[in-house]
């Protein structure tokens, strides 16, 4: 079985190790690094529970090989909070009831983060479109949209002051 030495920056910290060719990025994050915030919800690249940022773009980590991330930067939900301060999205999800069972939440947060990095003032349609690769079975999405809007407003406020 072929293995590869990889060096992947995860949430800002370099991680090194040997991975089997077929090891999926999501399993490397969850089972090897024990970053279990990234979840698995389907087999067919539909649900988005496994969404992480790969070089800043949200991708489904069940459909990326760990070795494909070699030399790249991965951000997971565990990296959102910085120095004890929640990311405005995290705050927004709690304030606006953007989560219920919490299983899709890490993926939603990462997708939301990439959206806000690109678009500081997304419309409801922009948000709905951006999260359309992330399934949620609990919330009916209404409050998720509000949570992202909350975070966008807060981020704009922060950059204005």
């Amino acid at each position, binding site marked *: 079985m072929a293995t590869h030495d990889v060096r992947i920056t995860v949430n800002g910290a370099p991680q090194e190790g040997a991975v089997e060719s077929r090891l999926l990025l999501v399993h490397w994050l969850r089972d090897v690094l024990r970053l279990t915030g990234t979840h698995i*919800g389907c*087999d*067919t690249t539909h649900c988005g529970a496994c969404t992480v940022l790969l070089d800043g773009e949200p991708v489904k980590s069940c459909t990326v090989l760990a070795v494909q991330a070699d030399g790249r930067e991965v951000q997971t939900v565990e990296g959102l909070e910085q120095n004890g301060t929640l990311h405005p999205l995290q705050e927004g999800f709690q304030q606006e009831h953007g989560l219920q*069972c919490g299983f899709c939440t890490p993926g939603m947060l990462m997708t939301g983060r990439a959206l806000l990095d690109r678009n500081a003032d997304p419309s409801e349609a922009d948000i709905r479109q951006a999260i359309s690769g*992330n*399934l949620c079975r*609990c919330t009916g999405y*209404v409050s998720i949209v509000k949570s992202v809007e909350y975070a966008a407003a807060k981020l704009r406020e922060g950059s204005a002051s």
Partner: protein
Amino acid sequence: MAPQTTPEVCGMGHSMKRKEDPRFIRGQGNYVDDIQLPGMLYLDIVRSPFAHARIKSINSENALKIPGVLAVITGETLEQYNLHWMPTLMSDTQMVLPTEKVMYQAQEVAAVVATDRYAAADGVEAVEVDYDPLPVVVDPFKALEPDAPVLRTDKEDKKDNHIFHWEVGDRAATEGALAGADVVVKQDLYIPRIHVASIETCGCVADFDRVMGKLKVYMTTQAPHAIRTVLALVAGHVGLSEEKIQVISPDIGGGFGGKVPVYPGYVLAIAASVVVGKPVKWVEDRMENLQADSFARDYHLKAELGATKDGTLTALKIKTVADHGYTDAAANPSKFPAGLFSIVTGSYDLKHAFAEVDGVYTNKPPGGIAYRCSFRVTEAVHTIERLTDIMAHELKMDPADLRLKNFVPADKFPYKSVLGWEYDSGNYHGALEKAMERIGYAELRKEQADKRGRGELMGIGISSFTEIVGAGPSRTFDILGLKMFDSCEIRVHPTGKATARFGTKSQGQGHETTYAQVLAEELGIPAAHIEIEEGDTDTAPYGLGTYASRSTPTAGAAGAMAARKVRDKAKKIAAYLLEVSEDDLEWTPGTFSVKGAPQKSKTIQEIAFAAYTNHPPGMEGGLEAVSYYDPPNLTFPFGSYICVVDIDRGTGEVKIRRFVAVDDCGNIINPMIVDGQIHGGLTMGMAPALLEEISYDENGNISGGSFMDYLVPTAMETPRWETDKTVTPSPHHPQGAKGVGESATVGAPPAIANAVVDALAHLGVRHIDIPITPEKVWRILKDKGAGL
């Protein structure tokens, strides 16, 4: 109802931010697949490609050669321990692993135990199974024909595929009333197989400690206590004893009914752990989840509704064939093989009704669980709400007028329905009138008429549902004999903070928050200072779990009752501390004070401290209480929904333009959470109305068995729900609450179906079975010459 407590105490009526969120928003939830124990092994399952086949042989040789593969478990292995069959919740039997034949596609055939997931998956592929296909029975009507192959050959006396007959109501009187009715409408309906598809699939980690003989199972279960008892009953003969079984339901990524049953995978992981003495993890993948776990619905109905010509509904008769798959593994209360289908008279004051259901075996996976609904209530509501609309069209009455004319009036509650339920409270006119006002019903009807004139298709659909939740009173409600009460245990600590444990298990409903608010309401201790625990059978009091919207009506009520016991004791302590008689004290949330001398008072925190430091002579120390709450009745949440749809005449696509939901779930514990529950419920109501279905071809091959074809809606298909409420408290729940988690799932499908049919009614359309796909609409348009 305005909150009675301050925002600091945060009792009922406050939109408290959820206490569970801090861990979830940081990715620190602890779901079953997150659990990793030292030396843990992985179990993966070989599944049948055939829907009905004899197993000729299973060859594990190649699988066992794969590095990391430790064992292959087959039905024969389990047979040695008499563990190859297990009972279902409906007292039928279900295979853990087959020894003779498989009965549905994707059925478990063998299990591979390996050192990691990858090796286990390779092992599954390498197990060779030789099958001899048998005739497949897919259609439940064909299954009932005299020459149909008998599927349950394991049951010696079984000569057909009929499981049960259940009926309720007066058949003769109903038929008489129908014969005498001015107008009778008849409709066949099929409510298809669907799947809850919680985003977290099912799984467990079984950890058997050989030295202590203790089995700890972390499990995706909505009912940990009942599961523990079932495990003790099923595996008692191999040495598992209830006090040595600890079932832990950690964070659960959505349940919706799908995590009530015991699936073979759980039993296999437990058996493997007991045999090898190491922790064993089994987590199914999505396709296994959709293809093999319990389904919901699959009801074939024939319904008749009678009315006078002025629009008074008089009689309802329903005949149903229920396809249960190869075993009756529904998760109903034992005395209700068709669940609470007898709520089928709905919100209407019907004088005559009769319903019957026949359960049938077919070569499909077992189930008949709920899909975010209280035991077949969705089936009932869909039937009566569709029939009511058909009747309205037949009578050329506005569907709103017909409903308003026939609602059980507010002054008739508690209302005894003709099929035997006592509805606790309701104000049906209030909810529908509010929904009509909010959506602008009259203007929409005008717009519709204008659009029809231009050849455009829009429809307005109403659903005025009555739910029946909170199972249930122990005189009638049990599962495998276990009475369906629920429980709460409260410990108030010396510094006035509290820990409370419940017999239920949240799967996203926010119990850690709402239960704290329930107790805060009763005790005046800030909800922020009340820690809620559930899901560990070693610590939590016994309860039947969370499903059927029962947590608030049962465990929530137990919380209120236990809190009142605490308060009663606190009052005694306060009287002692203030040197007055108990009768001289009055309670405002959090404080006992002397009547007429409010400066003389003791806070609950002071009283709690005294309970451990200075309690009255002759009284036991401490401040704790337990309640096992046996509800006197079920609760009957209700609501009226109105949906507006536009139809694309070229493609047949249905677009929900607006959807207004007015719900009444009695007194509200946390308005924010109630809104969230309704949003989610509406989405899970829309999904089967327009998108989701699992079906089978004539060979029993599943279709819709992955997220490729099982169409869980995204944010793009889901409309922006508009919610509103009325409040009609339950007279028997201690806090007047009713439960809300499933109302919207139950109420939404007929609102949508009625809207689509309404859009096409002028073409003579009276019914379309759900899911209403673009092709179904297109075909109608084509047949009626109304397409593009």
